[in-house]
């Protein structure tokens, strides 16, 4: 699944030695990470490793204690919010929204960074929002209020809002949570399709197998440090995985693609 296109010259996202303290506790310690157009990069790691904090830092919402984060070559804290929102879209893990808001209203809010104070949404803006809903399969529930949606539908609505921003860089925090296996695969296939169009995608994922199957590159974050990064086959190995998650899981090759699969190492069963 490597990108067919040559990587862009300037990285969409360039993090160098990113260090973040939250309430005195170090959450990120010297993280280096690049994301270019046309690629899907997976940010892996156990709970509390700092994945979500890194994504928030990448949109300038967390003050850095050290290092730098640049979007398209400009330090993130020097970019006006509106300009940043035209380049970068974010799908949070559990975003809140009023339950009475309709899906189409939510998606249309994605056009906000493209609209001036005085302007109303044009036919083009409505078309972009409709297209975002079509690509994410939100059309059939576009007129429904958010409170009536299932967890998976809700997630798709928020992904559609991010697409409506027409971002060059898309950041997602656990987009597969709450989704069944089929929907997880569809979500990641959508990310691949976006990468084919040139979008740079950075996705925080728990599921190592899913990440290995769909990402061009992955970085393993543990206690705020990147302990391994590179192609999935180089990072998702028995050695790295057992170092991070202990010896209760093993890595085996996918029967068709050979991509690494992480499964529990079942030694005995209670009923055996």
């Amino acid at each position: 699944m490597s990108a067919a296109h040559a990587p862009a010259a300037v990285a969409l996202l360039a993090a160098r030695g990113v260090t973040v303290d939250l309430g005195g506790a170090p959450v990120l310690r010297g993280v280096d990470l690049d994301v270019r157009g046309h690629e899907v990069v997976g940010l892996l790691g156990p709970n509390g490793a700092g994945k979500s904090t890194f994504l928030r830092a990448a949109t300038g919402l967390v003050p850095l204690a050290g290092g730098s984060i640049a979007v398209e070559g400009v330090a993130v804290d020097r970019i006006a919010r509106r300009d940043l929102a035209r380049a970068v879209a974010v799908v949070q893990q559990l975003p809140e929204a009023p339950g009475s808001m309709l899906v189409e209203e939510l998606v249309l809010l994605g056009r906000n960074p493209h609209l001036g104070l005085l302007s109303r949404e044009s036919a083009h803006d409505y078309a972009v929002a409709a297209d975002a809903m079509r690509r994410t399969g939100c059309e059939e529930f576009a007129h429904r209020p958010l409170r009536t949606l299932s967890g998976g539908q809700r997630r798709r609505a928020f992904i559609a809002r991010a697409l409506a921003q027409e971002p060059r860089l898309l950041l997602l925090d656990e987009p597969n949570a709450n989704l069944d296996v089929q929907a997880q695969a569809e979500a990641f296939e959508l990310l691949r399709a976006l990468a084919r169009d040139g979008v740079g995608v950075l996705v925080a994922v728990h599921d190592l197998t899913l990440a290995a199957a769909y990402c061009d590159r992955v970085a393993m974050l543990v206690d705020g440090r990147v302990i391994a990064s590179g192609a999935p086959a180089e990072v998702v190995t028995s050695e790295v995985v057992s170092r991070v998650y202990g010896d209760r899981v093993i890595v085996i090759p996918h029967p068709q693609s050979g991509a690494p699969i992480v499964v529990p190492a079942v030694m005995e069963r209670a009923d055996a």
Partner: protein
Amino acid sequence: MSIEATPRPRPAVGLGRRRRLATAGPLALCTGLLVAVAALSLTQGAASIPPGTAIAFVLNRLPLIHIGVEAPASWETIVVDVRLPRLLAAGVVGAALAYSGAAYQGVFRNPLADPYLLGVASGAALGASIAIVSPLESSSYEFGWVPLLAFAGAALAVLLAYGFAQSGRTVSNTALILAGIAISSVASAITSFILLTGGDRAQPILSFLFGSFNTASWTRLVVGAPYLLGGAAVIALHARLLNVLQLDEEQAAQLGVDVARSKVILLAAASLVAATAVAMAGVIGFVGLVVPHVTRMVFGGDYRRLLPLAALLGASFLIGTDVLARTLLRPQEVPVGIVTAMVGGPFFLYLLRVRRIGGFR
């Protein structure tokens, strides 16, 4: 999820047109209600003047219109110089309170927010109390010191609350609410002290605290209009940003909103509108809390629709309750603030039972 390699924007599924239609209907409905209540207001009072005659008097004041009316000359004075300014004052104040209440609720993402949250009412009451008991009031100043000091008190209270709540460039909603409560209690305590120790001279403070339109005049309307219109225009410009802010501040920032700046602008504009309304008519409770809330329950939470509809319904509500205030115990007048609470409270409870409180989360 269907997958396609390239996004091809297609004509939208009529979303834009549906939105405009969804606004036009309710707008016409609420405007009709306002006109009906206004006509009722002109005809009610000590002299019972037929609606047609009353409306003819008003229309005759517009350029290029002349309708022949056979009626006592004193009727024209009653309608045009007494009832019309009072009707306009009630309408303007009701619209202003509902409009600023909607903006406050939007900024705080909370249905319990009202335009008095940051101290507008108690600051205005303190300013008015000082004007009433000081030697200023007896001095010959045509416009009156009460509205002037009420406005200054309201503005000062909000500035103080904001100043205390601010840390760096940002200000948290919780800190703002707490600072507003603290400033309000201090101002209310001083007002109570003035009321208790001021003797008979302090009695007019009570009528300010309950609100009234019996001092409504063309002068007050003309002086207040620029502040009301200016503040309302700024809020109207931010209607779409209010929609974005309904998500939460982090998402709003990720959608390109400078949250800290938008909050300052919106709170300043909403407080300006509310302070002007209170300076014009005293402290009228309930309108700024309930009208935007009911509007949201009935017509949905899109601020571009909610703001104008809340203004129309606020105007209708306050004109209607002022009619009741004038007629319930005729010839005596009930303070309009008491009527708004007596009428609005039960109606709100009814809505809570029938249509579960909602619209926010």
